[in-house]
């Protein structure tokens, strides 16, 4: 036991430890009760017990194990109460007695790792919507409060609370077992997990230099989850691919917005402000992903991000490789947006005419009918070919389609520029 500290300091320590350990504590309890919703309630009970005891007695040497053990004991109590009414559970109770020892050392770290992995797969089960999965994951694994999750997703606390409650009900109704999925559904279920981590990251990343610190913090939560997954599933290439992608994207955080919060495009960013440490970590994760087998979509996107990260100036960018990587990506996950990105890369590698030819093919794509980036790219390529009148029409079309005021004024400026060049 560490020396007894001031009550206020002790309370903050409890909260800090809770956030650090929440995932492992909930997982460790769920490993016994096999029910994520119940495990979370019991973990909360353990937290309340810690808030009572630690300020008085000091913080235990292994706080996570303390919380897990208290939660498991409460689980046994709860199940015994049910047993009194329902003798059929007697066997489960005996089994529990064997698994729940009063000894703190009984919280074996390796089995907690297994439980943690099960918890992640359950919280990210495809029976839940991606946004519900994200809320549940941040709550169960990140130890975030509903209030913090609500601020991060720019919604109300009651909405998040309901979302989490409904998610737990859905998992219970669907009888989702507390298990790591078997080989038959492993790939699909892993996709479902990675999608959630990427969603959380993008939710934070999309908000450039916002007033609200919570949204950039979402990027941190996502990175933390991605690194956690690397430790739990070291043999999965796409886990490392996703981690690589997030590390490299996060490396540009300081450079991607001006002092006034205006977004700065990749080619205009001050590359000396890119975080070399995160880039190194990203490249290392990418190496691990590649060493494990064929590249999946996250690994390919990480490769593309790495091409930019390796270029010290925009001129050094290996656009031919990026174009080839987009072609690989389009083969695995066909999408007009990926095709449009490929057109941009091809234009950089082989000149605007080649890019234009590809981009033009997308003109009839219904999915891009209202996507401002298509006319924006077309306008840019046409302008570079000196076809200013056509370029102007595209920029104006793009300006009508974008919902972002800053972007609209930029596009209208370019349209005006085309007009002056023509006359």
């Amino acid at each position, binding site marked *: 036991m560490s020396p007894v500290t001031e009550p206020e300091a002790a309370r903050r320590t409890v*909260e*800090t430890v809770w956030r650090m350990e929440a995932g492992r504590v909930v997982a460790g309890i769920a490993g016994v009760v096999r029910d994520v919703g119940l495990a979370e309630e019991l973990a909360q009970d353990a937290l309340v017990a810690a808030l009572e005891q630690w300020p008085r007695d000091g913080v235990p040497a292994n706080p996570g194990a303390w919380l897990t053990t208290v939660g498991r004991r409460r689980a046994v109590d709860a199940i015994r109460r049910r047993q009194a009414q329902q003798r059929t559970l007697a066997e489960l109770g005996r089994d529990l007695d064997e698994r729940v020892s009063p000894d703190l050392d009984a919280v074996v770290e390796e089995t907690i790792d297994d439980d943690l992995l099960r918890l992640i797969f359950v919280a990210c089960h495809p029976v839940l919507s991606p946004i519900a999965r994200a809320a549940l994951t941040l709550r169960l694994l990140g130890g975030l409060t509903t209030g913090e999750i609500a601020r991060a997703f720019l919604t109300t606390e009651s909405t998040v609370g309901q979302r989490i409650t409904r998610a737990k009900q859905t998992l219970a109704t669907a009888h989702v077992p507390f298990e790591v999925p078997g080989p038959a559904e492993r790939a699909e279920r892993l996709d479902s997990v990675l999608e959630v981590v990427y969603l959380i990251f993008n939710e934070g990343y999309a908000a450039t230099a916002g007033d609200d610190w919570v949204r950039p913090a979402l990027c941190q939560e996502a990175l933390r989850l991605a690194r956690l997954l690397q430790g739990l599933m070291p043999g999965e290439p796409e886990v490392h691919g996703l981690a690589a992608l997030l590390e490299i994207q996060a490396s540009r955080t300081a450079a991607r917005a001006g002092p006034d919060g205006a977004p700065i495009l990749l080619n205009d960013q001050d590359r000396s402000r890119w975080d070399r440490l995160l880039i190194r970590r990203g490249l290392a994760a990418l190496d691990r992903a590649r060493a494990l087998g064929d590249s999946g979509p996250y690994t390919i996107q990480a490769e593309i991000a790495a091409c930019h990260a390796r270029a010290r100036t925009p001129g050094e960018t290996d656009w031919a490789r990026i174009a080839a990587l987009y072609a690989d990506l389009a083969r695995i996950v066909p999408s007009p947006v990926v095709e449009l990105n490929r057109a941009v890369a091809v234009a950089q590698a082989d000149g605007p005419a080649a890019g234009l030819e590809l981009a033009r093919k997308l003109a009839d794509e219904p999915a891009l009918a209202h996507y401002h980036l298509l006319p924006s790219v077309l306008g840019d390529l046409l302008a570079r070919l000196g076809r200013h009148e056509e370029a102007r029409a595209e920029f104006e079309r793009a300006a009508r389609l974008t919902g972002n005021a800053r972007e609209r004024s930029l596009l209208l400026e370019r349209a005006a520029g085309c007009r002056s060049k023509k006359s």
Partner: protein
Amino acid sequence: MRYMLMHKLDENTPGAFDPSPEFIQDLGGYIEEVAKAGVLLAAEGLEKSSNESARITVTKGRTTVIDGPFTETKELIAGFGLLEVRSKEEAVEWARRYADLFGRHGIDVEVDVRRVSEGPMES
């Protein structure tokens, strides 16, 4: 937010800079724990100051370079860890667990927790 944890040891304490296999195993477990939690960005341990060290001092514009060991310095930086955490309290909690690790092996240690400057220097 990033914090640097620096631990300082007395070179004259036996076992401080030449750790036992048991200590190394314990340390490995701690490093794995921090890495798995997704907060460890980098960590390095340092050799004792008798092994290829030097100290450069500038005093009133005069530069002197002396080679180690720095026998007159009691507490020498012995390693560092760079953590990305949510709060100072979290950094302190990781540092406490790190310090306890030394304590369990009977080694006195001092661990400093320092906030890493982030963002542009000019702002």
